[in-house]
């Protein structure tokens, strides 16, 4: 055992020496996470506020103006254009000057007073299906609330048969201002961490394979688990330095609230890094060249993880089969952990399942890779 530790110690020393030699590599693995989190923390925002509204009010009554105010009084819409001819709305929407357009036909107020149904039209550019969907949802809500208000005015006419009002009272927990940065920044943190650690490991080992120095190591009395541990430990250290950097940016630059325990994040990051290093090692056993390693990493891991982990697309919306697939994606669990601890103050009591899943995936992939690693060298 002691001999083993000494061997691993030597390996680690050698690796660190190599890393120190490759200054650019070191710079990239420390500076890139910094820049990426800083930049992409701002980019990954889904806040739809201050969308520009164009209105064609052909009714021109107090009622129609009050209706429009229901839109402009929210943070979602700003009234930007008012036109007289509905045809004038088309170019505004087409060129993207107005995100949404409202047409209030003549007779809007008269029909309501007569107890008839008044039509209101809204025009959206559906090219960006996501934004259009959100804007449509807000518009529908505003119209429904307005309609409820109108009906309430007629309640006295009912006389003895009375109907009460239902008031919806939304309360938002954990992120009352609904800032998407609080959700996305921890996600970017996890993403950057994954990319750095997986790249370092997979290419680091394939490179030695390409140059032929891996064979040299193999003919020494070093056993393969010592070799692997010696290779992985330095990357773990770099990974942890990155964890500290990116978490600090999230907390202090973006002000993401840290409700839960910081040590818990670090402990669970270790589990996550276990899985990414395992995957990196696995790639290195499959790839024959660095280019192959890069292709495999990007197409089999980064891209599917990006799409299926719940980073940007809610898993609940995916088809059932795909939802099952997400269970083998470590990033999925780490995202739940980081977001849970940061925003909700979740502890191990809530997150044990995710932690266990990471541990299981990490153990499996590492064992598998070590076995393959052994074979590829024989």
């Amino acid at each position, binding site marked *: 055992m002691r001999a083993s530790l000494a061997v691993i110690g030597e390996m680690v020393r050698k690796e660190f020496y190599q890393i120190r030699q490759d200054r*650019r590599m070191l710079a*990239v693995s420390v500076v*890139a996470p910094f*820049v990426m989190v800083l*930049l992409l923390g*701002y*980019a*990954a*925002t889904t806040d*739809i506020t201050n969308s520009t509204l164009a209105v064609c009010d052909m009714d021109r009554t107090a009622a129609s103006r009050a209706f429009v105010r229901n839109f402009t009084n929210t943070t979602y819409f700003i009234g930007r254009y008012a036109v007289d001819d509905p045809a004038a709305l088309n170019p505004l929407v*087409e060129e993207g000057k107005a995100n949404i357009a409202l047409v209030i036909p003549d007779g809007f107020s008269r029909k*309501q007073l007569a107890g008839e149904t*008044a*039509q209101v*039209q*809204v*025009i959206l550019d*559906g*090219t960006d*299906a996501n934004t*259009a*969907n959100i804007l449509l*949802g807000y518009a529908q809500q505003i*119209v429904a609330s307005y309609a*409820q208000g*109108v*009906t309430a005015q*007629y*309640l006295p006419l*009912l006389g003895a048969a*009375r109907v*009460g009002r*239902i*008031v*919806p009272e*939304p*309360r*938002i927990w954990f*992120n009352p201002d609904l800032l998407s940065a*609080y959700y996305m920044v921890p996600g970017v943190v996890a993403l950057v961490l994954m990319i750095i650690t997986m790249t370092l490991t997979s*290419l*680091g080992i394939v*490179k030695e394979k390409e140059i032929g120095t891996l064979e040299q190591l193999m003919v020494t009395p070093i056993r393969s688990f010592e070799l692997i541990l010696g290779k992985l430990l330095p990357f773990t250290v770099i990974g942890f330095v990155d964890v500290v950097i990116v978490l600090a940016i999230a907390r202090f630059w973006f002000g993401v609230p840290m409700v839960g325990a910081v040590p818990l994040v670090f402990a669970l990051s270790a589990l996550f890094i276990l899985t990414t290093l395992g995957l990196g090692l696995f790639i290195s056993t499959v790839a*024959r060249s*660095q*280019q*192959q390693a*890069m*292709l*495999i990493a990007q*197409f089999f891991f*980064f*891209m599917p993880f*990006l*799409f299926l982990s719940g980073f940007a697309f*809610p898993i609940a*919306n995916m088809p059932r089969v*795909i939802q099952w697939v997400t269970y083998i994606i470590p990033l999925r669990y780490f995202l739940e952990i980081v977001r849970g601890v940061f925003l*909700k103050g*979740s502890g191990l009591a809530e997150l044990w399942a995710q932690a266990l899943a990471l541990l299981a995936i990490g153990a499996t992939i590492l064992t598998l890779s070590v076995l393959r690693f052994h074979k590829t060298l024989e």
Partner: protein
Amino acid sequence: MTFPLRPLKPIIVKELRQVRRDPTSLGMLLVLPAAIIILVGYALNFDVKHTPMVIFDQDGTPGSRAFLDKFRHTEYFDERYDARSYPEIEELFLRGRAKIAIVVPAEFASRLVAGEEVHVQILVDGADANTAGQAVATATRLTADYATRLVADAFALRGGAFPVPIDFQPRIWYNPDLISSKFLVPGLIGFIIVLTAVISTSLTVVREKERGTMEQLMVSPLRPVEIILGKTIPYLGISLIAASAILVLGYLLFGVEVRGSILFLYGAITMIILGGLGQGLLISTVTDSQQVAFMISVFSSLLPSFLLSGFIFPIATMPVVLQVVSNLAVNKFFLIVVRSVMLKGVSFTAVWQPFASMAAFAAVTLGLSALRMRKRSA
């Protein structure tokens, strides 16, 4: 300067031979883009539907159940739990089992009949701001709709008809059903092409540098421009095939058709491929090891084309500084052009500016790479 085509032939042949000798990589470059499009097209959509819901019915009368049925019978919410207390809801939120809770107060039905005001709480897990915002809007709308209906029913009971006051008619252009894949597929073409282009070239020059074969190329009578072109053209062919596969699959599987000119679309695809190849070559000429080249290409292509290009997150909602930075993601311009051509069917005159930006990006990156090559050879 003239571009004699004859000297290009040997280097193209050489590159092609190298590509052929690594059939694994070639296969991945051709097949994986198609695989990703199938996965993403099926798996992803932005609709916030099937949000896991918990119901806390403190009234437990037919009246309260009729109200809650409004929430049960939509695709927006999936009733997962019945809670009996607030701590139970909090527990479910913390564990991520439910994202929205509808709390109906005691005496809901009786107070409504008595004509009193009733408050219904809509509790939302705000961690995911996007989902939460839309869920609140939907729940508020359902509540308002139900209240309006109640009044109309009361009138109907007394023999008087009371129509719903407002008929809301959304008109959505270009993508009337707001199908996410129509938005995502054109974006994916750009995303995947940039990635494959950058990957396939970013390692080529640096690999030759590492192996020392670059010197051999340098002492040959080839000019830097010719080397760059020779390295670009084979991959241009591969990427064009991959892009065509995506277009065909997008049409066959997801019904994403091309409304505009196919010729123009291919022009745009060629431009983005050249831009991606240029970016990759530039990375390759400025780095000294494949590891660094890979890191830089991941951080300059994968994450920016995903987060900064408007692929998922609208550029208009980003801070101004970042909107400026987003011009460095060549994918941004491609997305504008391709979404316009595929979904809106616009002509060249409407999108010549982003088209020109792509051309400029390609010219600058390819030109800089050639310059860097010349310097090395000098």
